[in-house]
C-alpha cells in the first residue's frame, strides 16, 4: 500500500491503494452516520484544530462535525486573511496554535501552498481544506467517492469538469486524483479560464467545447463561476457564459445515459448550472455533501489513528 503520508496536502505522495483505503473506509463512516447515536470513540482525547485563514462555512462545518463524530475535541481558529496582512507570519500563527497542544490541523488559506508551510511548521498531521487555487483534496475524494457509488469503480470512467478551471482548486485536485484511480478527466471552460499548462497533467485533456467535453462522460461537474473574476476581463458577459457553458439537461443529453451531475457548491443557479440539472434525477449534489462528512471522518481516521 506504500508508506502512509503524514499529511493530506494534495495527492502527490499518495498511492492509489492508500486512496482506495480512504474511500473504502468512508463506507463504514456512512454507516456510523446512519445510526441513532452518530458517534465513535476513535479520536477520543485528541484535539483537532480547524485553522481557517479564509472564510468558509460549508467546509468548516463538515470538518468540524466529522471530527466531533469521531469524539475529537475541536478548536476553531478563524484568523481571516487579515492576520497575514497585519504582518504576522504563518509560522508565528502556527507556533501559537502548537502551544495549545493540537494533534492535527485542518487548514484553509487563500494562498496556494499555505497548507504545505503549515505542515512544515506544525510537526503534526495537516489536512488541506483548500489553499488558493492549489488543492482541495477532501472535496476531490468525496467527488470520487460519489462517482464510485454509482459505478462501483472509477476505472475507465470519464469525468467532465466545466467552468472556471483557472481559479478552481477543486478542478486541480480532481485532475490529480481521478486519473490515479483510473478515470479520465476532461477540463472545459472558456479559453481564458482554461490554462494550457494543465494539459500537461497525466490523464487530463482540455477543451473549450462543452459538448465535446460531455460526450461519453459518466459524470459532469459544474464549477462555480467566480463572479469576482469578471473584473479581470475573463468573460464577455455572464449571459454569454451561461448560454455557452451552462450544465443543463440539453447538454447532459450528450453524456452517457446514466451520467450524474455534480457541483462542489455553492451554486449560482441558472448561471453555471440550470435548475433542472441541479434538482433533476441525475443530480448527486446533496449526496456529495453527505459523503463529504464520511470522507472527512475517514481521512481523519487514516491520518490519526494508530500513528503512535
Amino acid at each position, binding site marked *: 500500500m506504500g508508506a502512509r503520508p503524514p499529511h493530506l496536502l494534495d495527492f502527490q505522495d499518495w498511492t492509489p491503494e492508500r486512496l482506495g483505503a480512504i474511500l473504502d473506509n468512508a463506507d463504514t463512516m456512512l454507516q456510523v452516520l446512519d445510526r441513532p447515536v452518530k458517534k465513535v470513540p476513535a479520536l477520543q482525547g485528541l484535539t483537532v484544530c480547524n485553522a481557517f485563514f479564509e472564510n468558509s462555512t460549508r467546509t468548516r462545518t463538515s470538518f468540524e462535525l466529522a471530527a466531533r463524530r469521531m469524539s475529537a475535541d475541536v478548536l476553531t481558529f478563524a484568523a481571516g486573511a487579515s492576520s*497575514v*496582512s497585519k*504582518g504576522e*507570519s*504563518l*509560522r*508565528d500563527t502556527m507556533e501559537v496554535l502548537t502551544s495549545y497542544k493540537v494533534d492535527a490541523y485542518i487548514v484553509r*488559506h*487563500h*494562498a*496556494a*501552498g*499555505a497548507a*504545505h*508551510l503549515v505542515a512544515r511548521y506544525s510537526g503534526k498531521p495537516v489536512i488541506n481544506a483548500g*489553499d*488558493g*487555487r*492549489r*488543492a482541495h483534496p477532501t472535496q476531490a475524494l468525496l467527488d470520487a467517492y460519489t462517482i464510485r457509488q454509482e459505478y462501483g469503480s472509477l476505472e475507465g470512467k470519464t469525468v467532465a469538469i466545466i467552468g472556471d478551471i483557472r481559479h478552481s*482548486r477543486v478542478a*486541480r485536485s480532481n485532475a490529480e486524483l481521478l486519473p490515479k484511480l483510473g478515470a479520465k478527466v476532461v477540463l472545459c471552460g472558456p479559453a481564458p479560464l482554461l*490554462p*494550457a*499548462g*494543465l494539459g*500537461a*497533467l497525466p490523464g487530463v485533456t482540455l477543451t473549450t467545447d462543452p459538448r465535446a467535453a460531455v460526450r461519453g462522460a459518466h459524470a459532469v461537474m459544474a464549477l462555480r463561476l467566480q463572479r469576482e473574476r469578471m473584473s*479581470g476581463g475573463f468573460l464577455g458577459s455572464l449571459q454569454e457564459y451561461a448560454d455557452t457553458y451552462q450544465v443543463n439537461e440539453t447538454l447532459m443529453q450528450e453524456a452517457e445515459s446514466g451520467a450524474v451531475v455534480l457541483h462542489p457548491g455553492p451554486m449560482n443557479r441558472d448561471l453555471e448550472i440550470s435548475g433542472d440539472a441541479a434538482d433533476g434525477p441525475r443530480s448527486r449534489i446533496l449526496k456529495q455533501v453527505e459523503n463529504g462528512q464520511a470522507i472527512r471522518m475517514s481521512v481523519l481516521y487514516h491520518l490519526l489513528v494508530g500513528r503512535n
Partner: protein
Amino acid sequence: MITITNIKRVGSEKTESVTIENGLIKGWNLPEEGDVIDGQGGTVAPALIELHAHLREPGQTEKEDLASGLAAAAAGGYGTVVSMPNTSPVVDDPAIVRSLIEKASGLGFARLRPAAALTKGQKGEELAELTYLKEAGAAMFTDDGRTNENARTLRLGLETAGSLGMVISVHAEDASLRADGVMNEGPVSEALGLPGNPASAEAARVARDIEIVAGLHAQGVPARLHIQHLSTARALDLVRAAKAQGLPVTCEVCPHHLTLTDEALRSFDAIFKVAPPLRTQADADHLLEGLRDGSVDCLATDHAPHTRAEKERDLLDAPSGIAYIELAFPLMYTRFGETLGLERILDLMTAAPARVMGWTEPTLDAGQKADLVVLDLTTERTVNPAEFKSKAKFTPWAGETLKGWPLLTVVDGKVAYQR
C-alpha cells in the same frame, strides 16, 4: 601602504606580490613595504562591480542598511556597488544621494555609487531632477522595482539622461501582462495553482523599450538603455537583434536565473520568489549561451534582502527577492567555471559592468586604482547563512558546497574584507 604577497594573476602560475600606496597600485614584485598581507596563494583580480543591489537605506533598515550591505558586498569580493533607489523615501533628491555617498565612504567596506530614481517618487509620471542628481553623484537612473508603464516618460528620460551621458536601467516587465503573477507562467504554475507571470510580460516590454531607443537613435539622439535582470530566452533574442543593429542597449543576467528554475517553487518556499520570476531550464540555458556569446553584457545579483518573517509568509504575500551578494562569485565559479571559464566570469563581474556604465575598465596595472580581490579558487566551503554579513541570513544555496571564495577585498587601497 600595503603589500600583498603570495598571489597569482589570472592565467599565470607565477607567485607575485603587489604594493599599494595612496589608493593606487604602486607596482608588482617590489620590495615589501608597509603592512604585509599573505595572499595565501590566491588568484588576484580587479574587485567585482555590482550594478544592481538593494541596500534598503533609507527607511527599510530592518532588511539591510549601508553598513551590512556594503560589508556583505566586500565579503563577496565587490569593490563597487550601485544601489537601487526604491527606498523609503525614494532616492529622487540630490540631498539623499549626497548623504548616502558620505555615509558609505566612512564605513570602509565596498564603495557606494547610488542610482537615483528616473521619476519623482518612482511614480513613472514626472522626471526627477536628473541634472542635479548626476551632480550629486548618482551613478545611473532607474525606477527599478517599478516597471515604467508610461512609455513617453521613459522616452523623455532617455533623451535627458542621454544628453547627460548617463545610463537608464529598466525593470522590463509589462505590469498588465504580469497581472497578479507570482511565478513563471507554465505547467508548474498551473499545477501548483499559483498565478503565473508569462514570459511575454518581459519580452513585450523589452521590445517596446528597444523601439524607443531605436527611434531616438535614428534621430541621432544619444540614449543608453540597460535592461536589468533579463530572465527569458525571448527577451534575450530581442536584445541580440537590437545589438546587431548597433543600438545602444545592454543587459544583465542574475546568477539565480541561471542556477534555479520554476521547479524550485514546488516547495512553496517564498525564498524562491523573485521578480522577474525563476523561469524554465530552457530559459536558463539560453541565458547561459548569451553569457558565452557576449549578447549578455554583464552579471548582477539583484541583491534584495528581506526579513526572515517576510519570507516565511505564503507565496502570494511574501515579497520578491533573494540576497546573496556574498556568494555570487563562488556560485558562478562553481557552477559555470568549466563552461564559461574563469576569465569570462571575471570579465562579466568586473570590466563588463564598468563598460555598461561608461566607466574606466578596471585593471591591475601599476598606477590604477587599488580595487582588487584575492580569490581562493580551490578550497570548498559549505554555504552557512549564519556567517553572512548581510542582515538577510537565508539563501536558496544554504548547505551547498562552493569554491571560489574571496580571501581579501581591497577598496581604494584599504582592506575592506579579509577572511
